[in-house]
């Protein structure tokens, strides 16, 4: 066991106690002051300082030494690929699902994927884990903290910080209902469901169509509480400093339990203020930055990733100045733009958007996912595609057997919020006459875009084997997101993955090869330069250049279902001389002529052409 990666079970108070560096102390106090005022800030800081000292006392000396060597620019590298999964997507007899997951990973993912995002694995009451009953326990149906530790020996782990809300079945909320004074300010309460004026309600950004306030009977009478997501998910009141301190305590507990990355779920809605949109307010950014300050002080190799399903411009604000907020941000515009490109056969919008993507800093990057446990959000592209284009994209998803989830616009109307469909089904019609091989090629082509773009790629586990829609589960569970949450029997899945004739085998092997190729290339480091080319309406292309400028990869993905010729001009590849390009995926070799490179692309062709700079 690498002792530099694991915290001690008991704190060591024999060692000298951690002292918060003065610069960080100043930053923290300033933020607490902005959030709560000077008087409260002082007391809150004292408690925060205590939490940090306790946390630090759990660090073995090897960890402290290793952290001193860590470079923020190398926090994420080309070797990082994140697998998104529920703890129980694969199930087997006689073993906890987390043990089965470890078995699956050892058998099929070793040497490729290096990070697991295990979606909330805590006891919960609804929303497939996102209504947490107890933040500090592992759901016994999944396994135990020991199972998490076993996975952590071999993989980096991303934990969910579901800090915006708790389950209505949690002890905290029960204490509130029971009238415990300590918990009366833990939630945002109103005397009646009509306490918020229509004008204020209209302003509030809603990700759901459910009612914002939910009424509960308490020891002291009926009370209405703020419920952004559902009546079972009660928003926490971060205006109460005790809530903030409690969540920081939990955040540090997760770090001690092995979190390498902390995903701040639904962080957008963390601070509510009537008269505003109650979404991504300045206070929310301050809290995120405060989390970052604390981690910088006592766990500098742990990264924050924010999950903010909002417009692209608002989304990337969570990077802060590039060094003071999230180290990684979900690239929410990517999935719908790639989907749109494959639906329409035009990469125009994708190319234009990608060309404008900025390298944030050497210590911050994008999380380039195409699919996850949720649907494909469309809010992030509402300033990129027209409303008509988004509506048509949603209708095409219906034609592919998917569904649409809506959000309340606050004016009595609703609009699409996300598209519920598996990625494979989103771009392949099950009813079409196309061969499996052709559809697999289209699927691989779409995945290649997330693999080559600046950032860290993510894959939702069912996409590893090209999972199709589970529409029956939608009707069974009455929840459109169930379409992409099928669970698999281990034996059945392994048989499919080991049978050369099955699509699952073909998808997994081709994706596996792509992953293994990617992780060996310095030009795919998140900080490697990216230049997007506009070669053709039906191809997406970019050039990545390693930080030492010695290696370059021209990645071209055909998004058309026909053969096409493309030409890469001499100025793009600085081709004064004849250059030989090698496709690192297939081994094919191409040469430029008169400085330019002419290529014939087959339908959904993927070329990763490498040459020396």
């Amino acid at each position, binding site marked *: 066991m690498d002792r530099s990666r694991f915290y001690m079970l008991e704190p060591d108070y024999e060692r000298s106690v951690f002292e918060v560096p003065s610069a960080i102390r100043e930053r923290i106090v300033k933020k607490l002051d902005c959030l709560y005022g000077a008087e409260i800030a002082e007391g809150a800081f004292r408690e925060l300082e205590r939490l940090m000292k306790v946390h630090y006392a759990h660090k073995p000396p090897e960890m402290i030494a290793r952290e001193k060597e860590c470079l923020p620019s190398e926090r994420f590298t080309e070797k990082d690929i994140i697998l998104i999964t529920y703890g129980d997507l694969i199930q087997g007899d006689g073993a906890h699902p987390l043990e089965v997951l470890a078995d699956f990973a050892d058998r099929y993912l070793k040497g490729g994927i290096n990070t697991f995002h295990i979606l909330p694995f805590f006891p919960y009451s609804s929303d497939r884990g996102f209504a947490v009953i107890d933040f500090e326990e592992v759901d016994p149906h999944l396994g135990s903290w020991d199972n998490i530790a076993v996975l952590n020996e071999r993989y980096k782990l991303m934990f969910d910080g579901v800090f915006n809300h708790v389950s209505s079945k949690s002890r905290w909320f029960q204490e509130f209902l029971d009238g415990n004074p300590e918990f009366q300010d833990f939630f945002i309460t109103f005397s009646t469901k009509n306490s918020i004026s229509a004008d204020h309600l209209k302003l509030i950004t809603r990700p759901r169509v459910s009612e914002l306030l939910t009424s509960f009977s308490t020891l002291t009478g009926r009370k209405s509480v703020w419920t952004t997501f559902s009546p079972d998910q009660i928003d926490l009141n971060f205006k109460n400093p005790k809530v903030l301190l409690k969540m920081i305590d939990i955040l540090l507990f997760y770090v001690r339990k092995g979190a390498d990355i902390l995903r701040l779920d639904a962080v957008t809605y963390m601070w509510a203020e009537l008269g505003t949109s109650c979404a991504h307010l300045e206070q929310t950014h301050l809290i995120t930055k405060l989390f970052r300050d604390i981690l910088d002080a006592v766990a500098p190799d742990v990264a924050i990733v924010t999950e903010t399903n909002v417009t692209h411009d608002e989304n990337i604000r969570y990077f802060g100045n590039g060094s003071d907020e999230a180290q990684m941000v979900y690239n929410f515009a990517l999935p719908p733009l790639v989907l749109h490109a494959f639906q329409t056969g035009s990469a125009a919008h994708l190319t234009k958007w990608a060309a404008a993507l900025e390298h944030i800093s050497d210590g911050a990057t994008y999380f380039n996912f195409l699919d996850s446990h949720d649907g494909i959000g469309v809010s992030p592209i509402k300033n990129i595609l027209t409303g008509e284009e988004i509506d048509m994209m949603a*209708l095409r998803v*219906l*034609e592919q057997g998917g569904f649409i989830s809506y959000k309340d616009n606050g004016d009595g109307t609703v609009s699409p919020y996300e598209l519920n469909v598996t990625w494979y089904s989103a771009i392949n019609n099950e009813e079409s006459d196309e061969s499996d091989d052709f559809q697999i090629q289209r699927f691989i082509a779409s995945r290649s875009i997330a693999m080559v773009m600046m950032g860290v790629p993510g894959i939702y586990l069912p996409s590893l084997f090209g999972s199709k829609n589970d*529409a029956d589960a*939608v009707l069974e569970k009455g929840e459109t997101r169930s379409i992409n949450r099928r669970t698999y029997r281990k034996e059945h899945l392994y048989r499919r993955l080991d049978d050369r004739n099955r699509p699952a085998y073909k998808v997994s092997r081709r994706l596996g090869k792509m992953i293994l190729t990617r992780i060996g290339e310095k030009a795919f480091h998140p900080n490697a330069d990216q230049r997007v080319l506009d070669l053709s309406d039906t191809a997406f292309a970019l050039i990545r250049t390693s930080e030492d400028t010695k290696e370059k990869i021209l990645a071209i993905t055909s998004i058309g279902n026909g053969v096409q010729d493309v030409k890469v001009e001499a100025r793009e590849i600085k081709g004064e001389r004849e250059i030989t390009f090698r496709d690192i995926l297939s081994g094919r070799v191409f040469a430029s002529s008169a400085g330019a490179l002419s290529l014939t692309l087959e339908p959904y062709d993927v070329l990763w052409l490498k040459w020396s700079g």
Partner: protein
Amino acid sequence: MGGDMVFTKKESSDGRVVIIECPQRVRLDVSSGLRALMKEAVEQKKFMIVIDMDKTGFMDSTGLGALVSQIAVTRSNGGDIRLARVKDPIVKLLGITHLNKIFQCFDSVQSAVESYDN
């Protein structure tokens, strides 16, 4: 195929609207029939479709899939798919799947057909 499993297709008196009558149960064994009739209508450039669901009391996921199988192509050609005489179990299904926000539902086939005049 028994009579209670057959889809029938006809046209409105002016020939503009295709009307497809659904059987009692629209499930895996028959939903391809609905899908085929809708595809045929679209291939004949008939983009205004009414689905008469008066007899239909059960529909599974394949039936729902067939209902929306031409929704984008009809709408992008100035048409639509509209439902008539939808019974409670199907209304519930449309609610669960949020397809109630997609489909306009009418009390009669005639009113569904006439809605295309507006």
